[in-house]
């Protein structure tokens, strides 16, 4: 890491602190629960005394207990430290896959819209008709025929939804291949009329429709229909977060597209998708990476807010937001707010600081400070 550091200047102390904290966060969220040293707070049958103040701050010589609650206990006597660690895992399990899904959706749609625009993609009428009917048929077989399985999956939550999604994906791919074969045959026969697909238009409308309702509201609405499960929250969050990434990628690609080297590549006869993947996208990525870092912070905050409100996050998952809620029942138990709030704020702040750092590193000319 050190040779790169010298290029972009030294790490200032807030940046070191943020990086160190994020490493600690990852360690806590991934490694500690896996080692089994600490039991999951809601599976721990032998709970301690309720509202035990943190060990560090308790000067009384109670000393009878074998367990030391470094950060105190909550209402039912669960260790706050254990909830913090498993809450970190929950935060990670929600935010990371959701951001990954949102990024994939956003980059694909954004690059379609930005790189090809309204006139870049010409499709033969045969492909259009066949594709549309194939899409309808695939939709029928993936959702209408399998609706019983889908309902079961949504009832049981977690991984059966992913399994159903996998089956649906297979069906769609199968129909895609059949459609492609039929299209090549149709073009060979002589159906060569083509039309342009206004992709940019479609994507912009989709962004506008998703953006017409405030994000938290949309997520709360959608969660009303689904069972409380982390996978549902992940999918729904991804469905509302892709727009910002798509808009960024589109904007960047619109600028990159006009640069001379892209035109040169086009003149050289390199396939468009190859130019997009090899030349254009890498140059559009820096703002996207920064947006991902900010988005992760947003999602962690969203997860905490949802679990605080008691919406969408299942009751058996440990979460920082749920821990914080405990203060409402006992305002004197300050440790229920201070520790989770600090970890939450530090995580978001560290992500923001690292995002700024990345921004500076990736585009040194655009320094704002």
């Amino acid at each position, binding site marked *: 890491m050190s040779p790169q550091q010298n290029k972009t200047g030294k790490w200032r102390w807030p940046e070191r602190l943020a990086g160190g904290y994020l490493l600690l966060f990852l360690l806590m969220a991934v490694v500690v629960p896996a080692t089994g040293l600490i039991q999951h707070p809601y599976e721990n049958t032998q709970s301690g005394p309720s509202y035990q103040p943190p060990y560090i701050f308790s000067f009384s010589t109670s000393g009878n207990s074998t367990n030391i609650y470094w950060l105190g206990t909550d209402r039912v006597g669960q260790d706050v430290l254990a909830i913090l660690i498993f809450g970190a895992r929950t935060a990670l399990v929600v935010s990371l896959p959701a951001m990954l899904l949102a990024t994939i959706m956003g980059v694909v749609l954004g690059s379609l819209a930005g790189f090809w625009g309204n006139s870049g993609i010409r499709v033969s009428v045969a492909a259009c008709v066949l594709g549309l009917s194939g899409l309808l048929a695939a939709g029928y077989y993936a959702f209408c025929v399998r609706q*019983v399985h889908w309902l079961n999956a949504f009832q049981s939550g977690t991984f059966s939804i992913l399994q159903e999604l996998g089956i649906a994906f297979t069906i769609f791919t199968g129909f895609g291949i059949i459609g492609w074969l039929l299209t090549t045959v149709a073009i060979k026969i002589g159906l060569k009329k083509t039309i342009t697909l206004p992709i940019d238009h479609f994507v912009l409308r989709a962004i*506008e429709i998703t953006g017409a309702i405030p*994000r938290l509201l949309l997520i709360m609405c*959608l969660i009303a229909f689904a069972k409380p499960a982390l996978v549902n929250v992940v999918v729904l969050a991804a469905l509302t977060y892709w727009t910002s990434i798509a808009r960024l990628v589109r904007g960047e690609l619109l600028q990159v597209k006009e640069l001379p080297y892209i035109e040169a590549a086009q003149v050289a006869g390199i396939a468009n998708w190859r130019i997009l993947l090899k030349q254009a996208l890498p140059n559009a990525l820096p703002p996207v990476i920064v947006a991902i870092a900010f988005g992760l912070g947003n999602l962690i905050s969203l997860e905490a807010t949802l679990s605080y409100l008691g919406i969408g996050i299942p009751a058996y998952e440990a979460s920082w937001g749920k821990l914080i809620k405990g203060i409402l029942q006992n305002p*004197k138990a*300050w440790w229920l707010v201070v520790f989770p709030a600090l970890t939450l704020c530090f995580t978001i702040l560290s992500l923001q600081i690292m995002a700024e750092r990345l921004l500076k590193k990736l585009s040194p000319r655009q320094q704002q400070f």
Partner: protein
Amino acid sequence: MVQYALKRLLWLIPTLWLICSLVFFLSKAVPGTCLDWQRGEFGQSMSRGLVNNSRTIQPIKPLFYFSVRSKAEPDTLYRMQPVTHRAFLKRLALLNANWPSVAAFYQTLTLLQNSLVQLPVVTTADKQVLSYQLESVFSLSNKHVIQQALLRIENQAIARHYPKAYIQKIKVGQQQFKNITAQVTVSGVLIPVVAWHGFDNEYHLWFKNFIRGNLGISCRNQLPVNQVIAESFANTFFISVLSLGLIFFLAVELSIWLSKAAQFHSRQIVLAVLYSLDSVPLFIIALTLITLLASTSYLNLFPVFGLGPAAIPDEPTYVTWLYQLPYLALPIISLTLASLPHVTGQIYQAIQQLQQRDFVLTAKAKGLSERVVLRRHVWRNALLPVITLFTGFLPALITGAVIIEIIFAIPGMGNLLHQTVQTRDFPVLTGIVLYLGLIKVVAHIIADILYFLADPRIRIQP
């Protein structure tokens, strides 16, 4: 300009239609309606038969103008009541694809249920148990579990010496169920059938009312949705407008103060504080304020929950508002604290960029005081980004108000939404989505108009 605003408004209509239709269909697709949820809340004590009977009063309509279904399902399955039976039959039909056997099996089961009344040797308690067992078959999905349940019913009937004919019937049912799973013809499921239902369908009715502005009736308290929303909207509006005013007043003053040269040393500290405040989620700010300023454990300065007196007789309305102000203080302070860093940062940056411009240097060179330069010259020109912020900010404020209202128990849109989500009151949910979407788009249009008024040089590109 007018043309652009009109275009925006025209585009708004299909967007909102699409989203509200989506909510409508989702609410229909979810198993269990509002009524079921209410019954669930008021206890399971209500007998099952009563639940079944009350649903058949209303005529059942198809959901949409047309439907696509598998050939394995019969075309009138949507009329089947109650919903659990429909789902059960659909499951059997789609998994096994031989409708005649499924229908025969269903007929036997219902016959068993109905003839239960005429059994002479059975006590009422036994009848209830048996009826419950028969009914519970409809909620099963695994074929082995169903077979076991049928066997259990048969054993019970034999043990209690039910009439021979009745036990025979149960055996017939078992055989019929075996028939269903014996001849599975999967190819039958794969053939799609399209059926046209005409205009007398649920969506058509809902949409007709929707266009007329009638959003239906809340199933939680049987009031019209518009009335429910109007009652809550006033409070949300009050909070949003007050905090919006406070945020922008403070942000402008703060950024002008920060831009003064004399603040060189305190600037870094204030900016750092704002930066870290930006990462604190709103609900933590609100909760900290509640705990510190409104609980008996620490400083008890403000009332915690609710809105105070609704309306005081013999006093003008503004007096009521004055009484409500202490209740609103903490919510407004939390919203302001949560949004201030972002807005201040943006305005401060706009001012910083303007300070390098020629006209500012000219003004300074003329010998104008820093105060005049900042207030008259710079501020005017920083107005444009402020306008964009102002309206882009409104949705964020609404979202914030949702959390704040839930935490402080203020009867506004946010609290309404929370209750709606918890009780699955879908008509109200559609209404909230519609009105908040409207607010957001109208805010954008207002931004464009303000933009136009603030700077006539701008040509808006639609």
